């Protein structure tokens, strides 16, 4: 739920910002900067100074946009991008150190409230990123996504899990995954094999749409053969209608 809120907050913020400007704002530079900065959120504890600096630059850039100083803004956005990329590189090269730092700093939430008008920093800083669900973590736990009865559209509340999966696959381009599609026990075994396959294929399509090479995604259907809960009730059926990600290499 937190992730969804976070995602929404950012989306609303970006939307508002984009709509509020006129003329020729540096759209590309801004997008690159915002996205690069967002990608290093997880690294903010291990590269705190750089992170805060990038954040400050980003805020300034946004301010310049508001003031219609587009050239200045463009310059600042480029700096944010550069800084964010540097943070990402550091994070990639020192994953253990970053994890350790984060654990050492439990309970500390940043709390630097000097930018009263920017709510975003509060939301992100209060959110301790669970390393198990962190797309920067090579050993990230893969989340399970669920479906309605006889449907293969991923439940809306599970879509962010696929986004995280896509980020993880972006971060580890050499990794190949297998998506296992499953059905609940109701219906014939052959039909359920097809249904499980449809579900796995749907998740695969979402990853491809997010920019992942289809060759890195295998799918397999187990139909109703591998329930996580063998009971015959709604709760069990819900759990069993699922797609799981597995390491293929």
């Amino acid at each position, binding site marked *: 739920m937190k992730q969804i809120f976070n995602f929404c907050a950012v989306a609303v913020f970006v939307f508002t910002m984009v709509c509020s400007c006129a003329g020729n704002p540096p759209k590309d530079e801004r997008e690159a900067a915002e996205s690069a900065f967002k990608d290093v959120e997880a690294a903010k504890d291990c590269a705190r100074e750089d992170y805060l600096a990038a954040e400050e630059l980003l805020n300034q850039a946004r301010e310049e946009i508001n003031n219609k100083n587009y050239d200045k803004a463009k310059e600042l956005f480029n700096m944010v991008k550069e800084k964010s990329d540097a943070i990402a590189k550091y994070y990639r090269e020192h994953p253990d150190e970053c994890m350790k730092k984060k654990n050492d700093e439990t309970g500390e939430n940043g709390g630097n409230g000097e930018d009263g008008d920017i709510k975003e920093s509060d939301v992100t800083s209060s959110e301790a990123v669970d390393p198990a669900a962190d797309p920067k973590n090579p050993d990230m736990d893969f989340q399970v996504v669920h479906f309605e009865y*006889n449907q293969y559209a991923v439940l809306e509340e599970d879509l962010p899990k696929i986004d995280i999966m896509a980020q993880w696959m972006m971060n580890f381009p050499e990794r190949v995954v*297998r998506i296992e599609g499953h059905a609940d026990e*109701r*219906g*014939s*075994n*052959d*039909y359920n*094999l*097809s*249904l499980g*396959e*449809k579900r796995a*294929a749907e998740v695969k399509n979402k990853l491809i749409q997010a920019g992942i090479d289809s060759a890195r995604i*295998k*799918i*397999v*259907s*187990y*139909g109703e*053969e591998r329930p996580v809960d063998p009971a015959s009730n709604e709760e069990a059926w819900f759990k069993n209608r699922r797609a799981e990600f597995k390491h293929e290499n």
Partner: protein
Amino acid sequence: MSVHFRLIAALTVIFAFFNLFAQLQVEVKDGAVADYKMAVSPLAVLGGADAGLSSEITGSIEKVLDITGYFKVLDKDSFLEKPEVAFNKVDFKSWLNVGANGLIKGSIKGKDDVELELVFYEVAGGKERLHKKYSTKAGMAKKAAYRFVAEVIKILTGEEMNFMFSKIAFIEKTGDKYNLVVTNFDGSNKKVLVSTTATVLLPEWSADGSKIYYTSHEKNNPNLYSIDLKTTRIKTVSAYDGLNVSPSAYPDNKTIALCLSKDGNSELYSLDTTTNELRRLTTNAETDTAPSVSPDGKEIVFVSNRSGNPQIYRMSLADLSKVERLTEQGNYNQDPEYSPDGKKVAFSGRDEKYQFDLFIIDLATRSIERITQNQGKNESPTFSPDSKVIGFSSNRSGKGKLFLSNVSGTKQIAVYSGEGEVMMPSWSPAETN
């Protein structure tokens, strides 16, 4: 029907006889339960014969009669006459008194080489209708008895039945373990052909009964394999990426219809297993699966989700545009299976109580008859080679067991229940050994 004429001639003799006549008419007309009361006297055990085999044969005769749904097999505890009474000394009054319309009596002699003698009498007239002697090995004695029963059934109903000579393949799942099992039609003589914790799914016989096709995830993809029953050699039949499932044999004994998902979604194909040549049969964004080839090889019935939920369709193989929807009621109809006589299609459908039950479509009239109701989950119907009996899995008494039913659904019995869950039964073609 000559049986009728003879019976009509004898109609005035006694009331019991009239009773028998009335029942015979019902049987022959529409297959409803006729309740012909048959006494099967335990076989007399003569010189050197195995008493266990004797009672096994008696039980088998009873079971076959019972499954047809045409007979009420009488309880032997009520019988007044001893099995050892000679064939020419039968006291028909004592059999009338226990309410028998017909009597089967016999004897077995010898240990390894056995002599089996069987007689069928009409009790009311005290008339011998069939009398046979079989000399064979002990292991074949049961089969000899089945031949006799098949003839008795033919005499009384006019119907040719051979289900008793056939086998049933099914999956038994115990925990994570899948066994591919073959038994005789009555659940006896169990053989495990494949046993693995990877899946074994959807077994189906080759047209000549020499092989069984099945799908397994052994290589992390649901590939189709075949196992030869004599040599137990396993061959990969189809291993495209994605599903390779739901085979159904064409009568040519080399082509199968199956469901593949290699082109992005479940579609039907026919595959020549000798040349590996594929012919695509459906093109559809929704699921098409579970083909069953008609006995003449000219059409298939299958499941498609093209209307938004799974329904049964029929398609001409000569003209793939000729597709016809067979089921209109219910929104979850699956598992279609052509009867070997080409007249019917059995399927499982979810009813208004959200339970899966079996139905049979009469292709000539399009009427749909319900076979099971309020008896748990009933799935995977499969016809006996004579189209007289259907096998299916049912969890009506807890875990899934192998059940048989006559085609009108009036007689249903469990024939196999083991340690695990019985699933996906598939009936063999006629006589496979």
